[in-house]
């Protein structure tokens, strides 16, 4: 059973696929866009852009440190570099370069980390970016986004190109449920309420938004009204949406495909603790590395399920 199936959501594209298509199209409109790759462009899908715009696609080899600083240099000559790799390698391997070559000088670089979370599956924990949101949020002035589906990823890709300044966009490997329609709006820093509810609020991002929708569907059968918020921007976080939830619902559950520390849960808790504190519970990977296995099996084993969200809701409701 995939996340979103309970609610009848259809499986759509992987967010990385949507990103690749969107970037290619944006490349026609913005001649400043360039891509800088560490030889995984066919995985991150920047290859789609680079094939359409070969003079603007730079594959610097398996050398993430150099890759990130090259992107910083390109930005200082007026270009809009999109530097992409697996989230684990981009954030963990090249963190100092992101800090010094991008964040500190506020370079207009768009960092895209794909294959985030444990849902990459069989390749195993060395490839799973499960701490990337925490690391990205620790960089002053960097916008951090985690998108839930193909449509919102395309809109997020366009929004980050239009935005002036450093951005980190987190994407996943597997195909995920469709949450949005083309008519839905997407604005950096403004959460989207996917489902209204007044008993409890489930704040999620990435593929856990579909899990949250499933949980809300099941909870409704039991007479519990759950609000579902897609907090696609972790930084700057939508303080208003969280404060509203603390006033209008009695508890908050945060669900994310990330470690317990430093991710969306931490960001939401910081707002809640300063607003009207309400009971909170968290659904995440916890404090461990995962393992190889099939993606759905991993999500089940590590508790990233609608059932885990429902259990969390009942704990705090």
């Amino acid at each position, binding site marked *: 059973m995939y996340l979103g199936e309970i609610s009848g959501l259809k499986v759509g594209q992987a967010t990385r696929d949507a990103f690749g298509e969107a970037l290619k199209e944006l490349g026609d409109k913005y001649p400043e866009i360039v891509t800088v790759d560490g030889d995984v462009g066919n995985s991150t899908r920047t290859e789609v852009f680079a094939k359409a715009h070969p003079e603007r696609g730079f594959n610097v080899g398996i*050398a993430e440190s150099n890759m*990130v600083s090259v992107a910083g240099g390109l930005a200082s000559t*007026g270009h809009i570099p999109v530097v992409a790799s697996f989230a684990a390698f981009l954030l963990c391997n090249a963190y100092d370069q992101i800090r010094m070559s991008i964040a500190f000088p506020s370079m207009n670089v768009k960092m895209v980390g794909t294959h985030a979370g444990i849902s990459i599956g069989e390749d195993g924990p060395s490839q799973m970016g499960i701490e990337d949101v925490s690391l990205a949020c620790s960089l002053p002035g960097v916008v951090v986004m985690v998108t839930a589906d193909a449509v919102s990823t395309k809109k997020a890709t366009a929004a980050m190109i239009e935005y002036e300044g450093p951005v980190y966009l987190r994407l996943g490997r597997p195909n995920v449920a469709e949450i949005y329609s083309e008519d839905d709006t997407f604005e950096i820093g403004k959460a989207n309420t996917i489902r209204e509810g007044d008993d409890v609020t489930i704040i999620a991002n990435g593929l856990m938004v579909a899990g949250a929708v499933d949980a809300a569907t099941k909870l409704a059968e039991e007479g519990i009204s759950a609000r579902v918020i897609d907090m696609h921007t972790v930084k700057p976080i939508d303080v208003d949406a969280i404060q509203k939830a603390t006033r209008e619902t009695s508890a908050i559950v945060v669900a994310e495909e990330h470690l317990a520390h430093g991710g969306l849960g931490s960001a939401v808790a910081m707002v809640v603790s300063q607003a009207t504190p309400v009971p909170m519970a968290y659904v995440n990977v916890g404090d461990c590395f995962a393992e190889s296995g099939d993606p759905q099996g991993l999500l089940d084993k590590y508790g990233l399920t609608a059932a885990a969200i429902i259990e969390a809701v009942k704990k705090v409701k």
Partner: protein
Amino acid sequence: MAAQANALSIEELKDKGKVLRRLIIRMTTEAGSGHPSSSLSAVEVVNALWFGGFMKYDSQNPTWEARDRFILSKGHAVPVLYAAMAEAGYFSTDDVMTLRKLGSPFEGHPNMKRLPGIEASTGSLGQGLSLGIGQALGARLNKNGSNVFVVIGDGEMGEGQVWEALATAEKYKLGNLTAIIDQNTYQQTGATKDVLDLGSFEEKISAFGWHTQTIDGNCQKAVVEALEVASKVTDRPKAIISKTKKGFGILPVLEETGDLNYHGKPLSPELAEKALAFIA
């Protein structure tokens, strides 16, 4: 305006070098901290680039698109850059005396966000050459004839990222990129050959496909000649291994202290007086 029009002669450059050295000593002693010896070794290179006609820049328009770009990858030596930029008219020599003080844009390491004309924020070693590659690729896309010059420390060559960058610059045949390795033979805790001996930079870098030269980097004439040779090479990246002495220009004064490395500390006011007198 473009410095080429006003290129100084070797003799004039030598006088300018003394001005830069005096500024380096005065600003670091005034600050009470900093890296004067690391700055002094690179004076002839920085001097030639900024005043010998090898870089196009406009101090009154620091964001001029077609300017050449100077990256000080060994960011701790930034006093030499502040001194050169003051002499080039970006700001006054009085301004740089606020070095390292709260509120001053003349930070302990280059911060491009606070000081127009600084082309890269550095200080975490190893990143400057990669930034230079990005700028050289950007200049190529912009078709503006801009050249990029990167000064790297010899201790800094221990950073793996530099070697990633050396390979990448060759891949893209960046003829508008020049790296100068300020081989002053010392790093924080001792002689570079004792800390991590990388052998011959010329052999290693030429093996990466770069054009290379090894020179006496504290000889003003040798530096100018090497930059002239490099300026004529346009089909591949260029490296100048600049053999220098840390603290060059005031070595007898440093010898008195018994510390020829003299890393990361300013001269006392008394020593600074001696050093200034020696330079004069």
